[in-house]
């Protein structure tokens, strides 16, 4: 593996994604600032969390689609004209994407923790839970990315996303129920009950890694015989009309990445709707976050026992907000 060229390609992607990254970071920090300044309004906190989650998801989706974009914007021939094998190219895409995501994730997580610590009314007990969930999001996203890049199939991506989402959900739920965490979440202090927390993290992280490792190795193996799409067969593009004998120009222009892994060229690919794939993924993660928010809400309800008058109102608001954002996640092209 030529690490030099892989590094150059990663740096190139960094440079290209620079504006987006800065915008995401800026918006995230702005949100944290707004949440902190909101002085204890439930809605502000919940909205803040949802906006942050949206940023992370959005960034994740953009990163995931960076490989697709390379093809769509037709810059792939330029990259592949460089002294790089397809394996190295894919590695740079995967590593680079996850790296960018990781930096943003780290920034937002630290920002969130800092906001909790600095803001007087924020229960510090939330921090362990948030850290665990953030780690879960990171590992889940890495897994989804690895699977998506390996298979470039929306079927697999949706599958893994759903499973990952459910797992995240279950983990969040079970962690919130754990006595060492559940009781301390609403508390004013951070209480890391080291044994149980680290056991939990290690259990879920190792579970995810067990899936991550084989998928990455599958990726590496399959990438040795990869081919780019063929411009003579770029159906649906302007060449289609000129190529003799082509009867059914399909919507392949945007979907060529599906054929990368198949040695047999697949012409008709019904349902390989890339928009659907990403939208589904967002949906799944959004579901997760909705669940998460509900958990938060449960904790917050417990918290809000002290101030009961606004609970019912807030519950409805929460659902409204979540549903609204769910529709938002059907983002078209990224």
């Amino acid at each position: 593996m030529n690490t030099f060229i892989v590094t150059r390609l990663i740096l190139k992607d960094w440079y290209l994604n620079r504006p987006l990254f800065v915008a995401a970071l800026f918006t995230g920090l702005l949100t944290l600032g707004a949440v902190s300044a909101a002085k204890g309004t439930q809605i502000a906190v919940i909205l803040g969390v949802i906006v942050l989650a949206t940023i992370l998801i959005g960034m994740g989706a953009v990163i995931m689609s960076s490989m697709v974009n390379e093809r769509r914007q037709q810059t792939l021939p330029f990259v592949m004209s460089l002294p790089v094998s397809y394996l190295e190219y894919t590695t740079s895409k995967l590593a680079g994407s996850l790296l960018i995501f990781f930096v943003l994730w780290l920034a937002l997580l630290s920002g969130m923790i800092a906001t909790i610590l600095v803001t007087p009314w924020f229960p510090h007990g939330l921090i362990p839970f948030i850290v665990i969930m953030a780690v879960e999001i990171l590992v889940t996203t890495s897994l989804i990315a690895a699977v998506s890049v390996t298979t470039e199939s929306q079927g697999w991506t949706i599958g893994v996303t759903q499973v990952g989402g459910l797992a995240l959900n279950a983990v969040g739920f079970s962690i919130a129920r754990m006595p060492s965490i559940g009781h301390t979440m609403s508390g004013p202090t951070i209480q890391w009950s080291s044994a149980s927390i680290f056991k939990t993290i290690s259990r879920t992280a190792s579970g995810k890694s067990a899936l991550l490792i084989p998928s990455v190795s599958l990726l590496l193996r399959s990438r040795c015989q990869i081919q780019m799409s063929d411009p003579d067969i770029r159906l649906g593009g302007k060449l289609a009309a000129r190529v003799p004998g082509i009867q059914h120009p399909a919507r392949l222009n945007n979907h060529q990445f599906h054929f990368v892994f198949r040695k047999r060229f697949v012409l008709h690919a019904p349902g390989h709707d890339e928009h659907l794939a990403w939208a589904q993924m967002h949906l799944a993660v959004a579901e997760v976050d909705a669940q998460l928010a509900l958990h938060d809400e449960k904790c917050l309800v417990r918290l809000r026992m002290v101030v009961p008058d606004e609970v019912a109102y807030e519950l409805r608001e929460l659902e409204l907000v979540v549903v609204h954002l769910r529709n938002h996640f059907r983002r078209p092209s990224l």
Partner: protein
Amino acid sequence: MTDLAVQFAGVTKKYPHFALTDIDLELSTGGIMGFVGANGAGKSTTIRILMGLVHQDCGTVDVLGHAMPMQQAVAKRDVGFVSEDMRLYGPLTLAWHMNFVRSIYPGWDQRYAEDLLRRFDLKVEQKIKGLSHGQRVKAALLLALARRPRLLVLDEPTTGLDPVARREVLSELMAVLADEERTIFFSSQNTLDVEQISDQITFIDRGRIIESANKESFLDRWRRIRLMLPPNAVLPRLPGIVEVGGSARLPVLTVSRFEPAMVAACQDAGVAVQAVDAMTLEEIFIVNVQNRREREVA
């Protein structure tokens, strides 16, 4: 003995509606090969296989001594590739691209790059998305030329360029060949260009190589013979008649294996030879393709 810069042997690649069959090609170091074919004939597929971007179903491909596509990363260190459907990064400047390529290729010649900037009339600080088609093609060519590759692979380098830009590009390509260790493989719709600067010509049609030959001997073999038949006379039998045109009394024969003895043979048969005309590459190309297609239909 010159070694081969490019070698295809029995290369086949099948798609559901198109197939590249039994491609054999040889290009010696220091030469320039012009690759001619109709749209959809398989030029781009062949070039992608050459670059290792598409994996052939069978057959071997060797580029600068490296087997493709397995050793493509090594081979591409010495190759400059420009294709018609290649795009650079729109939001970034030409300067960024030059620095990017320079950081990857140790053979980058900055002085030559600046010289090309001047001659191609390009501005470094301009973003790629602001360039016209011709400028983008020239920019891509600059990035390929300035790294001084041993092999240049160009897919339609002059398509879409105005005549002045075309001439500039052809000059630069020829200048590359001043070094006899450098080789060029290019495909083009522009038969005039191919005819003028190629050492070797290869015709491809419907996924098969029709001809691959030394340009001068190739052009020497094709002739249009204008005859005047006396009444009730019969057309002389000549080998390699590809097409018979004109009228009954004034036939025009297109032959693919001309020899001066044919003229004598006609005269001996009592047929007057009005003229023996050479053919341009375009005319040969059209006759070749049309003839094949007619034979296929028949």
